């Protein structure tokens, strides 16, 4: 699943490491808290569906891709692609993401409103990252005729944007059928939420204490990264091990492992078949429960 993969990449070094099942992308059932992590999941989930459907449409393997006729001229003979061609694949991906995968959360309560909003943010983010490319093909290749299309960016791009939005997510309240910023207890007029930011209803649980499916608690057993010789760490992860392990009451354990990896590969565009498997010694840090 593209979205989950991306989510796990984006949260590799965070307290919450996106250890979710694909089902949680689309329903609320196994998560009670409507926190900012869920907001991210919904956004990346809808963007992921849109992305994959668009790609499949382009490859011709998505059976349900249809030829939308919205841009065919008023009096055109509608359904005929020979008259006006087909719409963009991205439009169809958006349609599927919006209509087919939103059936699980209907209703007019706060959770449904939050889900709809965050999914919309995901779709919008993917749309913004799709680049408009144009090709001139007029007389002798001049620009009297130009045809434009949208090309999807790599999924990492919307992933990065959504991660930023996750950090700036806004806490909202459900008020009179609308999501509004701030706290309703205070007697301040509440402002509406911006359409491009992720929203959540309740604070995140303490991810140090959450019990996972495999019986581990919090960040127990997780790998963390540390600034060391030969390893450079991005700025935001400078104190990763402290944050991930120490703050949760775990100890950092340094382990030396033997790892199999591909090496001395002959560089080719695909399928590095001339690789050899080599044993490499790596040092990793893990969060470890105190004995």
């Amino acid at each position, binding site marked *: 699943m593209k979205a989950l993969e991306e989510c796990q990449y984006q949260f590799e070094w965070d307290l919450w490491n996106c250890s979710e099942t694909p089902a949680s992308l689309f329903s609320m059932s196994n998560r009670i808290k409507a926190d900012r992590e869920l907001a991210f999941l919904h956004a990346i989930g809808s963007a992921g569906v849109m992305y994959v459907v668009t*790609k499949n*449409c*382009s*490859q*011709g*393997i998505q*059976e*349900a*891709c*249809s*030829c939308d006729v*919205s*841009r*065919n*001229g*008023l*009096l*055109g*003979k509608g359904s*005929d*692609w*020979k*008259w*006006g*061609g*087909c719409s*963009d*694949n991205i*439009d169809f991906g958006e349609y599927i993401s919006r209509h087919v995968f939103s059936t699980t959360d209907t209703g007019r309560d706060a959770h449904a409103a939050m889900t709809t909003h965050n999914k919309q943010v995901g779709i919008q983010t993917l749309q913004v990252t799709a680049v*408009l*490319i*144009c*090709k001139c*093909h007029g*007389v*002798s*290749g001049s*620009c*009297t*005729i*130009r*045809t*434009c*299309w*949208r*090309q999807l*960016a*790599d*999924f*990492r*791009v919307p992933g990065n944007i959504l991660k930023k939005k996750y950090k700036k997510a806004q806490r909202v309240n459900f008020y009179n059928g609308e999501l509004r910023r701030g706290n309703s207890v205070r007697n301040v007029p509440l402002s509406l939420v911006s359409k491009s930011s992720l929203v959540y209803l309740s604070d995140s649980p303490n991810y140090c204490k959450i019990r996972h499916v495999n019986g581990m608690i919090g960040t127990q057993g997780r790998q963390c990264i540390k600034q060391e010789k030969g390893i450079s760490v991005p700025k935001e992860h400078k104190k990763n091990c402290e944050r991930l392990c120490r703050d949760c009451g775990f100890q950092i354990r340094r382990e030396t492992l033997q790892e199999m990896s591909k090496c001395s590969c*002959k*560089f*080719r*565009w*695909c*399928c590095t*078949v001339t690789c050899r498997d080599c044993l490499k010694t790596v040092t990793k840090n893990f969060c470890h429960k105190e004995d």
Partner: protein
Amino acid sequence: MAGVVLETLSWKKLIALGILLLLLLLSFFLIGGLVAPNPSNVMVVLGTKCLRKGSHMQEEWFIPFGGNEKCDSINSVDEDRVYDEGISANQIVFSFWLPYMRDGKQLDFSRWQQMLLTVMQLDIQYDPKFPMVKGNQYNCSLLAFFELGSLHYDYYLINVRVPVEPYKGINMEIGSLMDIWVIGIHQNGGFTKVWVSIKTAMFPIVLAVLIWFWRRIMMLTRPPNLLERTLFSLGIAMSLLNLPLEWLTLAVDMPFMLMINDIRQGIFYAMLLCFWIIFAGEHIMDQVERNRLKHYWKHLAAVIFGCSCLFIFELSERGVRLTNPFFSIWITDVGTKLALSFIILAGIAACSYFLFLCYMIFQVFRNISAKRTTLPSMSSARRKFYLGVIYRFKFLMISTLFCAALTVCFFIISQLNEGQWKFMDQDLNLEYTSAFFTGVFGMWNVYVIGLLCMYAPSHKNKPMETDETSNEEEVQLTHLPSETSSVQAFAAKAAAD
């Protein structure tokens, strides 16, 4: 110069005719904007990565989907299967089938769609060894792929191989190629239908007007003058452009249609440019006897030179594509330089042409204002003659400027609109680009029809001086108006004496 229809026409008739032509013009814009779809549409197709099992030498085609014919494919070049089975780069074939599936059905091309132009987009995974742009993928520019001047067949199957030759170094250091996209641009069938209908309707009309014009001239006792011959040629060029050759493409495979259309359009615009120069020249109203092509050789040379530059460029780009659709002059360094030099030369020619034209128009206006001051002192016949000349010139000036301004305005609107097309897909359903094409095409048709009607010799008898007397009087009159031209006029008078 003989009197033309324009001068004998009453204001009432002129306005009625003007409104009629304007309505015709408006209907062209509306047909394009409301009936026709966008001129072209795009198909973004992602290649299916088929696996080749046999030996390298075997000629084989791979079909991306279908029942038994479907090739054995992989989803991604870094999936486990590739490592487990030791699949090499040489075994992967990117397969494309145009057009793609929609609604679970296989679409097919129609011959109305006229042409197919494709570009390739490569997705290359980021490699820390080649740090260019931070990100997961390189931001690659488009590659021109191929261009077909006719869509004679229903389906097109494309197989792309990127074989690796370690000893020759072919395709070795190109990064990790994940996917190939082929973007196919085709003309819309609906647009072609509207376009061909307009051409089919306009062709007999322009032809009829042209024949009427020529018969008018033939009825005169004198041989046709230069301006009339130029106007006639302009009509012929217009008819050539109107000729609905597209009908033939429905039956015959005509890959040269793209080129023919470009050439037809080129001929028409070249003729139009020549016409403007000659028209301005014939209305300068000085004592120089022109009426011969020789006097315009400088100006016409600029037009012909510019056009032939573009023609050579066209031949070397679209002409070569007739034999090799994958050819592009831009892919080699020499070709790019050559193409650029042709375009620059054509640009220089265009600039010098416009300088000539502007200078000529300036001359005309200078003479017009000079004549204006002396008009009251002229005999009524002379006055009528000059007023006629001035009127004819101004009429053409205004209508030409109107057409040119409309073209430029509409071009800008359609370009702007296309850039923003992403943001306004639902609210407005007017096809600006189509409206631009049908509108501009219709406009020049109306322009040529208007010129042929207005500037045909009038058969209402008008008192006109014979050529010799007018010439003599012109010489006598010209030294009256201004100080600047008096020396010139004196010299001319001396020569006449």
